[in-house]
């Protein structure tokens, strides 16, 4: 597939998404084209983080377990997410910052709080979130250091 540059199938997948859902519903394992030549699936990474791979100064390593291979994207490499002209690549947008640390422009997970529709959005990267909290950042739903009140908040 790589040698022959036959990547039509990747667009078929995106086409199916739009046909079924009206928009590209793939949220992770979103295919990217590297250096205008190789198509890659950055699998568990949410597509939210795809743009960060473009011209990244870090060396990026991807393990492809089933192929028993490791793929590397060198620093400062062009990485472009596949899309259609009339359905351009978009990342998720969140209305509010992280409920615990107040971080913006990070990927948030939805946490269901009760069965009455209560929910909160918190950083997917919990380590980063805790780090920020330790440095004094706080979001609107961060429980102050009383452990009982955290229970009560639910």
């Amino acid at each position, binding site marked *: 597939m790589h040698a*022959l540059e036959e990547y*039509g199938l990747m667009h*078929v997948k995106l*086409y199916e998404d739009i046909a*079924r859902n009206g928009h590209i519903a793939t949220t992770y394992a979103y295919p990217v084209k590297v250096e205008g030549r190789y198509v890659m699936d950055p699998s568990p990474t949410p597509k939210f983080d795809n743009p960060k791979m473009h011209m990244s100064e870090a060396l990026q390593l991807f393990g492809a377990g089933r192929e028993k291979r490791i793929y590397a994207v060198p620093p400062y490499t062009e990485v472009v997410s596949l899309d259609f*002209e009339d359905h351009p690549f978009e990342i998720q947008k969140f209305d509010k910052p992280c409920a615990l640390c107040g971080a913006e422009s990070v990927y948030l997970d939805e946490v269901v709080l009760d069965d009455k529709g209560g929910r909160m959005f918190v950083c997917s990267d919990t380590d980063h979130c805790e780090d920020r909290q330790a440095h004094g950042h706080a979001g609107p739903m961060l429980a102050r250091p009383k452990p009982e009140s955290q229970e009560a908040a639910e």
Partner: protein
Amino acid sequence: MSAVPLLKVKDVSKFYGSRIGCRNVSFELYPGEVLAVVGESGSGKTTLLSCLSTRLMPSSGMIEYHMRDGLYRDLAHMGEAERRFLMRTDWGFVHQNPAEGLRMTVSAGANVGERLMAVGDRHYGNIRATAGDWLRRVEIEEDRIDDQPRAFSGGMRQRLQIARNLVTAPRLVFMDEPTGGLDVSVQARLLDLVRGLVHDLGLAAIIVTHDLAVARLLSHRMMVMKDGAVIEQGLTDRVLDDPREPYTQLLVSSILQV
């Protein structure tokens, strides 16, 4: 028809070990011409088709194709990538069993659109419109565009496969028993459709069939194969109405006249 042949085939042979697949087949195919290859099972017609469409490497002989840039290229000396590109743009291949030529688990629209996307079309709206247009041309209702071919009847699948192949406006289409496995009335409709499309698009086609009626309806010229060799070739009407070889006479006379 233009003056230069689209495909030049010279002394193509294919051996499976000591067994003969086909031997010393030579012919030329002109743009817009439909050639039928007929013969009984095991006569080498499918082997020949596989060699012509680069699915098999011939043991000897040469196949040259007139590229869009006006040059003849020897298929055996083309790179794999180039051949694959040719196959998905300038050529089509219609399999006897539509399941082989279709992606059964993606929608009809995506099946038709795949080739467009493979050659770099990146506008969803346009791809979908083209796919819808092609479904209409092969008489599939446009509201089936999001259905998977699994939900289609055999005849519809075959028509979908044809649409999928023709969407990139190929110049040469290979068909391997395109009407095999379809009932008679569906066959008739399919043949009618193929005849119309071939005529409208000016396609050249090589159709392998054991059904002389298919050859009669679709082809301009035909080749009769027996034991791997071409024993008779000529204009379809001439071969069918005035067969010269004893085997062809047998073949023609074994059709039930209704």
